[in-house]
């Protein structure tokens, strides 16, 4: 058994444009995906995640580099000879076939005996809770049910890897949340490697073992959901995953992993954690997540505290979301959990209130601009 189930080595994919030029959809991407992993490709539309997936499936061939599946170089192997199966964005169910025929299709292509096909199709339909629906046509099913048929149709082939191209994109929010958990449970149950393409960061965080964040054809960071969220390695990742505040400044002092940053316009210094290589005098951003900022009516520490004025308060039940103006047009979002159950107005913030922000150094990530 190969070390990695899927490996992309320096893969480049260029497409011709109608104007006669060329556009690089995937730019030197390298990935190693382990057996049984739930791996997500996450990024905004046009970042190359779907093209990467399609190259693994065999619908596109790399302009440069290699895709390996189970250690075998795929080259120009067509999709029908690859040990992977895909769940398509719009399901791509065969409208003229019943649910049963849809699921049986892949096994018929393998020319398996009828009895085995029947047994496996029924088991697959049972697994996705569609037993008894086998005679329906796709059009007679709800979106969630069609999604399950698409899953069963791909999983029944027992692929080495299941590729999922924004499979929940067509479903409504509530159903999407349900299916996220179901998909993750299903993946644990069948033990097949899932490669999941999505632009929804919450979806990726919920389900993945590891995530590759992509932008403009490049992989920016690969890591577990916690690593990606807590230790983004660049400004784009910090911004794209979850919410964050950016404070612009210059490096004043470097002290190991600790950095002293002078915040532009505020004439104040913040101490933060260095992410990546930095030099003194370099322009940087300090990224602080809104839930990691403490609010108080007085200065709590000698350092890393900023005074400000509350400009907006939104009570949303679980949290209170406060916007604080720290001067020079710099607005900081702060989310505070409502841990106390009280009606006392003094427990909440009000507009124009003077306030102090405490940004603990370990919550301040200093990233290159």
């Amino acid at each position, binding site marked *: 058994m190969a070390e990695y189930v899927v490996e992309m080595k320096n893969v480049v994919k260029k497409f011709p444009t109608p104007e006669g030029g060329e556009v690089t959809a995937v730019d030197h991407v390298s990935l190693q995906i382990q057996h049984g992993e739930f791996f997500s490709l996450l990024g905004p539309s046009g970042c190359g995640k779907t093209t990467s997936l399609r190259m693994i499936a065999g619908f596109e061939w790399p302009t440069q580099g290699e895709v390996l599946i189970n250690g075998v170089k795929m080259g120009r192997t067509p999709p029908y000879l690859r040990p992977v199966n895909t769940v398509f964005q719009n399901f791509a169910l065969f409208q003229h076939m019943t649910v049963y025929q849809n699921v049986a299709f892949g096994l018929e292509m393998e020319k398996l005996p009828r009895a085995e096909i029947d047994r496996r199709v029924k088991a697959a339909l049972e697994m996705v809770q569609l037993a008894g629906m086998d005679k329906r046509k796709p059009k007679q099913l709800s979106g969630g049910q069609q999604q399950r048929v698409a899953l069963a149709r791909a999983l029944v*082939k027992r692929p080495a890897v299941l590729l999922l191209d924004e499979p929940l994109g067509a479903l409504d929010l509530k159903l999407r949340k349900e299916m996220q958990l179901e998909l993750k449970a299903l993946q644990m149950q069948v033990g097949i490697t899932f490669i999941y393409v999505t632009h929804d960061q919450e979806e990726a965080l919920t389900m993945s073992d590891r995530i590759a964040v992509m932008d403009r054809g490049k992989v920016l960071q690969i890591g577990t959901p916690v690593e990606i969220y807590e230790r983004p390695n660049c400004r784009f990742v910090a911004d794209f995953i979850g919410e964050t505040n950016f404070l612009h400044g210059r490096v004043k002092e470097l002290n190991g992993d600790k950095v002293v940053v002078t915040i532009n316009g505020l004439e104040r210094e913040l101490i933060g954690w260095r992410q990546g290589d930095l030099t003194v005098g370099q322009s940087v951003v300090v990224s602080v997540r809104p839930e990691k900022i403490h609010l108080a009516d007085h200065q709590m520490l000698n350092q890393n505290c900023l005074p400000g004025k509350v400009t907006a308060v939104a009570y949303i039940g679980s949290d209170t979301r406060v916007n604080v103006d720290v001067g020079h047009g710099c607005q900081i979002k702060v989310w505070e959990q409502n841990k106390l159950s009280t009606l006392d107005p003094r427990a909440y913030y009000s507009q124009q209130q003077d306030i102090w922000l405490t940004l603990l150094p370990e919550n301040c990530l200093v990233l290159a601009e």
Partner: protein
Amino acid sequence: MASNETIANVRETFWGNLSIVRKVRENPAMQGLTLMSPSLVYLIIFMILPMILVIILSFLTRGPYGDIVYRVNVENYIRLVDPLYLRILGYSLSTATFTTILTILVGYPLAYYIARVPARQRSTLLFLILVPFWTNFIIRIYAWIMILRTEGFLNSFLINIGIIQVPLNILYTPTAVLIGMVYEFLPFMVLPLYTSLEKVEISQLEAAADLGARPWRAFLRITLPLSVPGMIAGSILVFIPAMGMFVVPDLMGGAKTILIGNMIRNQFLVSRDWPFGAAASMLLLILTLAFTLVYTRRAGFGEELLV
């Protein structure tokens, strides 16, 4: 402004109280009838009435000078049951059937190609398919005669490049008739085929390939079934007019090839036996109807192949 509104109100009340207007407004069936009435009137005057005339005519008798004698009988129909006419009928059926099959075989790859090229080229190609309709049909048939005749373009070309020594005798044979018919009816097959092929999404074929289907099997299991409705529509559009066609056999088939269309034409215009021509027309109508019905049933047209 106010007076305008008042006038409108009065008008509304006046029309609204007329019982027939109210009936039309409140009854969806009546609304449908209103919308259909222009075409309905047209069809009744120019289609249903002439049909009734033809039916009546087919039961009358030809007078000695080609006039019509009002003596009701079924003589005309009995005359049709004659080996000569049955042979013409059989030949017409087989010609129409072959024409349909050939237009499918020739038109399918073309329709498939058009459905798969980028959208901009697609409209150009569809436009090109319709270009022949700009020229009169008879002129185009004469062009074919120029090509096919013994000393025509095709023969001189083939002799010049040395494939044949003696000119091929194509014009005025059943082959020429078939060539002309396929040429004439090809667009009627290509357009509906294109419409249904265009709806076959690339992602469906990708899904088939992903599930292990080689291109040929994906075609047989996905593309072909999904294009059946287009094939049926095209077949009907080709088969029905092909059954009644008389211009092509007349000009390209010579006197040797007579289809039922020629025969009916001759009864009306040459022999001046209108009642017999009417009876033959009825037979053609019934036969075409029967064939079309059986064909569409067989092909599962009613089953909503494309749900």
